[in-house]
């Protein structure tokens, strides 16, 4: 009785192995690998210039011959991303509110500023920074400059701070 069942059992095992092996082979063939390709682009936007609210900086401290003072810088960032001002440089003749006689010899000079980290948020307007010790007055300053407010034309260098 037992003997008669041994042979069919072996055949069943062999058959099962063959069926599983065939099924695995079938899966491997069924899942075909395909590739794809295509093109596109990535476009950079332009950057708008950081603007000075009054196109200049102005002195804030009382200056007198031999003294130095701070400059107030009011700037706006029209860009949709934050920027960092890294440098401020003198960009023209310094003028006063006292007229030609003072303007002819203000005796005021601006020291270019570098390695700054003045941060502006995206679209931030009229932010005020104070540059300590950025201006100085020499003995060349005309007497007409007493009590004057000086305007200091500057250019600003900024980078993206995103």
């Amino acid at each position, binding site marked *: 009785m037992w003997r008669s069942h041994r042979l069919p059992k072996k055949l069943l095992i062999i058959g099962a192995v063959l069926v599983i092996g065939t099924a695995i082979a079938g899966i491997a063939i069924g899942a075909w*690998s395909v590739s794809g390709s295509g*093109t596109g682009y990535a476009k950079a936007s332009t950057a708008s210039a950081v603007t000075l609210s009054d196109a200049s900086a102005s002195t804030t401290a009382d200056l007198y011959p031999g003294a130095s003072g701070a400059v107030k810088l009011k700037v706006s960032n029209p860009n949709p991303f934050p920027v960092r001002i890294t440098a401020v440089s003198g960009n023209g003749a310094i003028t006063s509110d006292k007229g030609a006689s003072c303007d002819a010899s203000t005796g005021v000079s601006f020291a270019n500023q570098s390695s700054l980290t003045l941060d502006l948020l995206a679209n931030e307007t009229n932010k005020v920074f104070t540059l300590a010790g950025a201006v100085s007055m020499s003995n060349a300053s005309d007497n007409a400059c007493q009590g004057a407010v000086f305007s200091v034309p500057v250019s600003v260098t900024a980078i993206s701070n995103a």
Partner: protein
Amino acid sequence: MLVVLAMLAALPASVDARRGPVKFRLSGSVEGLYPGARRTMRVTVRNPFARPMRLLSVQAAVGRAGRSCSGSNIAVRPFRGRLRIPARRRRVVRLLVAMAPTAAEECKRARFPVRFRGRAVLR
């Protein structure tokens, strides 16, 4: 019985083999990049096959946008996963795109060409 199973397993292969090496298509773009920016690029993947496709990966190679503006200014994170796309349908995958904070001035308004490569399996 075993012979019949083997034939069934081979059948899907022979059906597609008649069509030749058809590739699926990818396309996408992103705009508004600036130094330090991160954006999401929507890449459309079209399945041209009569069977569902499982997308496994999408890679993007960014080319030069100008003499002083190399493609290395743009980094694109590849897609890795298992996205099922039904037969003759399309799906969108999102790739993270970043512009280097040190991107040169010449990269303003630059248009970087992008070539996509994808890998998928047909089910």
